[in-house]
């Protein structure tokens, strides 16, 4: 890989230990993936924030970097933590976990990172523009950045994203190269997609059929942010792609010869696969990816005059929750007995053993509910989820 004089000096340690270590990471990755050079990035999203996943190993590494003077050089935001950073007691997090999680966040803040603690950085001010080279981790946000915003990023891991933030650079390969972003499979959607779970089911069905290949969707028009973020989360989780095109965003004439068709039967099949047999639910969680203000308004309207009888989390960015307070939605939600889980979510909080059956509107949340926490899962519309939180029944 060709390095500039400045980059060579960074690698030689002239800018200190933290820069040198992180340049070593990036040059090794560049060699592994056949990059010919480094390119500057304008934005970073760092995953690997929950102490539940990091453990003492990750915490120790982050503190070492922070203490050796590591500082980020570009706008850098954080993925969700393992708990609500202010309201963790009410969400049942134990004291020792809380203390460790606070240490993790302190190390990130010491490096100059904004503790946004959200998987939707694009909703809280880290919103790159079309053509921007960025280095994001968090697979749903990566797919959103590439597909909806038109920015360019590989699927970074936590450490490689952090390395990009500290050096301001990333090796040029994969999604940073225009020729690698062409659609590979033409996906015709032969059914009307209704609510958010349908988009999650679409991501599941397509992900299972084409894996990490890049789809060109025909039949997604005027999709809303909520639907798109659900599709991004699901297709990245179940297929592994970092990018999709829709006929609205795709400007080229070239259509890939490989074609598949998604019918109502595929969507229904995916929803069946994500639904376990369970008539009663004991945990309802919405906001995977984190809820938008509109979603919070819908939940507030549905909860009007009702009381929940099950643990009900609305996962969102703290900033979005504050906006919901200004609009009066948050107060109505709390009055019904539901809780905000800011800075965190049902996928990264330490929940194993606390609940048996999760109800959600997110296909991705089903994956982590089952895999990480051994929950049974029920997926349905926001109306069905709110109803389950009130009655405890899944109908």
């Amino acid at each position, binding site marked *: 890989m060709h390095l500039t004089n400045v980059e060579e000096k960074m690698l030689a340690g002239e800018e200190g230990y933290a820069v040198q*270590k992180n340049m*070593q*990471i990036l040059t*090794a*990755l560049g*060699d*592994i993936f056949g990059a010919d050079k480094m390119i500057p990035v304008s934005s970073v999203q760092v*995953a*690997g924030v929950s102490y539940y*996943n*990091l*453990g*003492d*190993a*990750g915490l*120790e*590494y982050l503190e070492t970097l922070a203490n050796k003077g590591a500082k980020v050089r570009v706008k850098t935001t954080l993925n969700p933590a393992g708990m609500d950073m202010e309201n963790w007691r009410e969400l049942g997090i134990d004291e020792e976990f809380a203390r460790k999680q606070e240490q993790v966040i302190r190390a990130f803040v010491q490096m100059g990172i904004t503790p946004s603690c959200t998987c939707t950085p694009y909703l809280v001010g880290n919103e790159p523009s079309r053509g921007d080279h960025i280095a994001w*981790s968090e697979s749903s946000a990566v797919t959103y950045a590439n597909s909806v915003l038109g920015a360019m990023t590989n699927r970074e*891991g*936590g*450490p*490689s994203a952090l*390395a990009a933030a500290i050096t301001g650079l990333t090796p040029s390969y994969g999604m940073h190269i225009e020729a690698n972003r062409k659609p590979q499979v033409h996906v015709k959607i032969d059914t009307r997609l209704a609510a958010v779970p349908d988009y999650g089911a679409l991501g599941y069905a397509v992900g299972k059929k084409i894996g990490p290949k890049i789809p060109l969707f025909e039949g997604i028009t005027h999709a809303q942010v909520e639907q798109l973020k659900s599709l991004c989360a699901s297709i990245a989780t179940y297929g592994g792609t970092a990018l999709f095109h829709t006929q609205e965003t795709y400007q080229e004439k070239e259509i890939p010869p490989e074609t598949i068709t998604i019918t109502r039967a595929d969507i229904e099949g995916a929803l069946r696969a994500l639904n376990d047999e369970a008539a009663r639910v004991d945990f309802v969680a919405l906001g995977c990816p984190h809820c938008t203000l509109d979603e919070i308004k819908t939940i507030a309207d549905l909860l009007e005059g009702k009381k929940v009888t099950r643990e009900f989390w609305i996962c969102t960015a703290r900033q979005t929750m504050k906006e919901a307070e200004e609009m009066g939605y948050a107060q109505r939600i709390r009055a019904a007995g539901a809780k905000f889980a800011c800075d965190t979510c049902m996928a990264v909080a330490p929940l194993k053993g606390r609940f048996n059956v999760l109800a959600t509107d997110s296909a991705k949340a089903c994956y982590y509910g089952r895999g990480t926490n051994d929950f049974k899962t029920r997926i349905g519309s926001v109306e069905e989820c709110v109803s389950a939180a009130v009655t405890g029944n899944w109908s």
Partner: protein
Amino acid sequence: MELVRGRKISGGTAEGLALVSHDPISFFGGVNPDSGVVTEKGHELEGTTVKDRVLIFPRGKGSTVGSYTLYRMKKNGVAPRAIINVECEPIVAVGAIISDIPALDRLEKNPLTIFQTGKKLKVDADRSLVEVSD
């Protein structure tokens, strides 16, 4: 003495006894960071410690948090002395670099067949070489 050439992933030199795994390794969730013992059910090395060995395996797998697990193992004194992969991927590459564990991949011969568990090896990652003692 035999010399085998490879590609440097993480610099440094180390000497130790080979431990060969034909299964990929997930450090996060698959290896105990306090003991260095492989815990993944059904893994070829299940119950074996990787501590102080020249660990030879096809590639890493699993969560990127695995890079931090390697770092933790190094701090706990239970990390492998060196790593040789058939084809290194980002989790092991990053883990080896931040932990100062010498690592090589893409050897001129398949390391899973030319090295046997228990063989004494010297890894000189700075010169991209593995030295096999007689």
